[in-house]
């Protein structure tokens, strides 16, 4: 695996502080669930905005932070086709995410990125795309979904299977309603048994089970699977049985990271840096990695 000098050069100023973030302003904020919040962030200036979108592709991630609390890694949940801002959606999981969630509209947070590789969506033109997401893992796929829907004519059928533990854990409820109404999107939502409410109209069942029932066709299709490890573990054999090739099945590895730029060693899996060589991998690639309990 050779260094991506070009990417490094476009992100880093010569002699600059590799770890220095930008200051971004919170333009909008909304609660997705009881513990998950979406922020819309605006760039400090036109130069920073243009530089970001010159290199941003769906799948890349960022480091979001509040000085005094620290930085956390999560996905960029909005696509490059919406290039005035970025959005992030994240669960309150600890000190840093709590500090970021507690910032108000008009206040600032820090951001570094975009880092990592991307989904090769330019190679998917004309193909069917199947999205399979669980819980808080819809945000990394939402950027791809919106990118595809913003360029709808370039792709064939779009299927989205999204599940969560309970109805209260579903994120992007307004967008799910929008996708439900579209006749060019096949949306299937599900909640785990016991997680339904009286007025729940979606399916009841674990994501792998519903995937098996729904049985999307593998013909001319790629599949993207993001979710908790247990969901991915049980979804992959079903995709295989359905006939999705490992080289056409994508996921993102969500390893813990600190630096995001191939230095701190935390995200290493085998000889790879998830922050540099990933976070996007095909299942074919994942199978070749040392099988730490990914």
């Amino acid at each position: 695996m050779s260094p991506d000098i070009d990417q490094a050069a476009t992100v880093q100023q010569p002699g600059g502080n590799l770890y220095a973030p930008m200051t971004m302003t919170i333009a909008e904020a909304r609660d997705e669930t009881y513990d998950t919040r979406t922020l819309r962030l605006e760039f400090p200036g036109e130069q920073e905005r243009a530089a970001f979108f010159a290199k941003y592709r769906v799948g890349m991630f960022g480091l979001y932070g509040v000085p005094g609390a620290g930085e956390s890694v999560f996905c960029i949940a909005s696509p490059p086709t919406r290039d005035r801002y970025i959005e992030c959606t994240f669960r309150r999981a600890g000190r840093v995410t709590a500090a970021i969630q507690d910032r108000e509209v008009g206040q600032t947070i820090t951001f570094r990125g975009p880092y990592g590789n991307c989904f090769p969506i330019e190679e998917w033109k004309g193909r069917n795309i199947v999205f399979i997401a669980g819980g808080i893992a819809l945000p990394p796929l939402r950027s791809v979904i919106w990118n595809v829907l913003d360029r709808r004519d370039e792709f064939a059928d779009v299927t989205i299977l999204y599940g969560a533990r309970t109805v209260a854990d579903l994120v992007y409820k307004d967008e799910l309603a929008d996708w439900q109404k579209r006749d060019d999107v096949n949306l299937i939502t599900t909640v785990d048994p016991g997680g339904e409410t009286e007025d729940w109209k979606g399916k009841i069942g674990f994501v792998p089970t519903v995937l098996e029932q729904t049985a999307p066709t593998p013909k001319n299709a790629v599949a993207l699977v993001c979710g908790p490890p247990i969901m991915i573990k049980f979804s992959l054999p079903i995709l295989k049985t359905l006939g999705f090739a490992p080289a056409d099945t994508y996921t993102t590895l969500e390893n813990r990271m600190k630096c995001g730029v191939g230095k701190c060693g935390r995200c290493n899996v085998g000889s790879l840096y998830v922050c540099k060589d990933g976070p996007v991998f095909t299942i074919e690639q994942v199978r070749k990695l040392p099988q730490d309990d990914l």
Partner: protein
Amino acid sequence: MKVLDADKLTDLAAALARAGYRVVAPIEDSGVVRLAEWTEGATIRTDVIPVNSAKDFLFPRSEVIGRWDLDGADFSPRDVQPDATKTVLLAVRPCDAAALALLDTIFNWDYKDDFYNARRRAATVVPMVCTAADEQCFCTSVGGAPDATANADAMLRSADGGAKFILEPLTDKGNALLDAAGDAAREGEAAADPPAEVPHRFDVDAVTEWLSENFESALWTTLSLGCLGCGACAYACPTCHCFDMQDEATRTQSVRLKNWDSCGFGLFTQHAGGHNPRPDQTARWRQRVMHKFSYIPERFQLLGCTGCGRCARLCGAGMSMSEVCRRIADESKKAPAHES
């Protein structure tokens, strides 16, 4: 050639300090020899391998990489400059210098870490040829040697049966150091002492090959049983470079720190959601060995170990990297990869 009396190393340190160098040397403090900044009156000991490695002065255990002023909910960044203090790493070991190949690579293979690079550029590396080795030394098993000059700007060679040192410049930085040394190293003649004999303890290629085939071996449980997960091995290691980033703040100011970390710690890889890809000490110890002898070689065509033995000297459970490698090499003879 330039020579100095063996007991006059402090004069050399003093001359270099006067010439503006921060002098890092093996210094005895409370009975322990550590690489530390030399100050007037400090005792330099070259007869003991220091517990720490020279990496401490290029990649310190804690370093400020960000700074903000805080004012209520507002914050504003302040400039942070890397430390570029002119430094000489004096009488370090060839195994310290060997590690620089990997550190230089890690901090520059793609993005450039100027905190490391500024210190590295400002450092003059002067290893001392080892004339004695202990039972933990194994540099010769990992491509090194007690008299290796890799990454050295100048070498100190014990001479005339330990009575003298020869100071031999190898680079421009080394020549500049010699100029700065002035009378502390005089023109003279001396006969270099033979380097230490460091036994060849294992076939490193056999280790790397076995590792590539045996991620799932039951041997990992046996090899890792003693590990307490304390991280001392990583902290003493000249090549271990994994770090954490943490903020520390008062009400008015915040700093972001780059701190040493270790793959031996359970929290190292633990996700926010609770999942841990390396859930036990076996998985973590396997990572340590794999990283040094399989993953780094695969990625960077370098070894992640210079055979200094510091990890084994410090380990409270008596674990030894060379012993682990020897057992793996033995295992590879028992069960060739094509039969497994």
